[in-house]
């Protein structure tokens, strides 16, 4: 079994709906790219990723947010080390030409 190291909620805004799932993780820390890929894989969202192509703009079409109650949300894209215990919820939101959801 995956060690129940950390529990959190993951969310994705997709097709106008907010999908949610409570999950357990196998480690306390992860980088933003890995977490984004794992969340997309979990929700089966996004076009198939060619593992062997260099990273493209398409991979950056989701913004990863860390949410923690009253403290609001923090954009985590590009973070090398995310401590999963620092946030209760992680959310993927579609990135638009207007910038991050924070800026909209």
């Amino acid at each position: 079994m995956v060690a129940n190291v950390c529990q959190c909620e993951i969310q994705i805004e997709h097709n106008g709906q907010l999908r949610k799932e409570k999950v357990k993780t196998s480690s306390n820390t992860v980088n933003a790219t890995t977490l984004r890929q794992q969340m997309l894989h979990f929700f089966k969202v996004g076009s198939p990723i060619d593992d062997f192509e260099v990273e493209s703009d398409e991979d950056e079409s989701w913004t990863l947010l860390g949410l923690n109650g009253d403290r609001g949300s923090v954009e985590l894209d590009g973070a090398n080390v995310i401590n999963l215990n620092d946030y209760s919820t992680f959310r993927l939101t579609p990135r638009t030409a207007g910038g991050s959801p924070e800026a909209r």
Partner: protein
Amino acid sequence: MQAALDQVLAQTGIAPALLSVDQRPAGTAVVWLLTDLTDPVEAIARNAACGSTPFVVHPDTGKLVRRLTVDAVERWNTDLLVSRMRGDRGEAATPALVGSIGRSGRLAMDTSGVPPLLTAALFPRDLRPVQSAVDPDRMRRIAWVLLSVSGGTDDRFHFMREPGDVFSIERAVAVGHSGSSEKQIRMKARALIAEADEDRHLIELLQHDRYPAAVWDA
């Protein structure tokens, strides 16, 4: 073909009850070995250690058998074949995550055994639903269907990395003894990912019990 196999068995002292030998193109063959295993969940869990001689469901008989794929018939009397018949994979008990391949984290390569294996995770390796328990009947159906899918292909199989955890089931494919080109490995990897997605869809259908149990318990 059968005579050659009998000769190898006589040389090695291995006497598995042989089910059949299917000749394939390019000097390859598939040998089906009878087993006394009847529990598909145990079979898919034991595949984590069986490696290249995995348990599958025989496409014709519907029985749990072990499938030995022989690449080159002329090498049948080698130590390699003996090792594979015994299901040895050296020290490794479970296909190891020797290295993740690509960017998605779904693919891994295990070079600890012969032949090397390329494996694809059906579900994210590091994120699992908190409510992830699957009842034994459904687990049995899932294992049975996946082992049947494995039996219908030449060189692929399924294994369960963590016993009893449906979310740890992975799909594996051998990548050849004498080394495969980078292009060949990439092609296999792409196919493996697509097939893993199909497996996951199958599991999700079976988890939601959309089919009558009688179909799978027959």
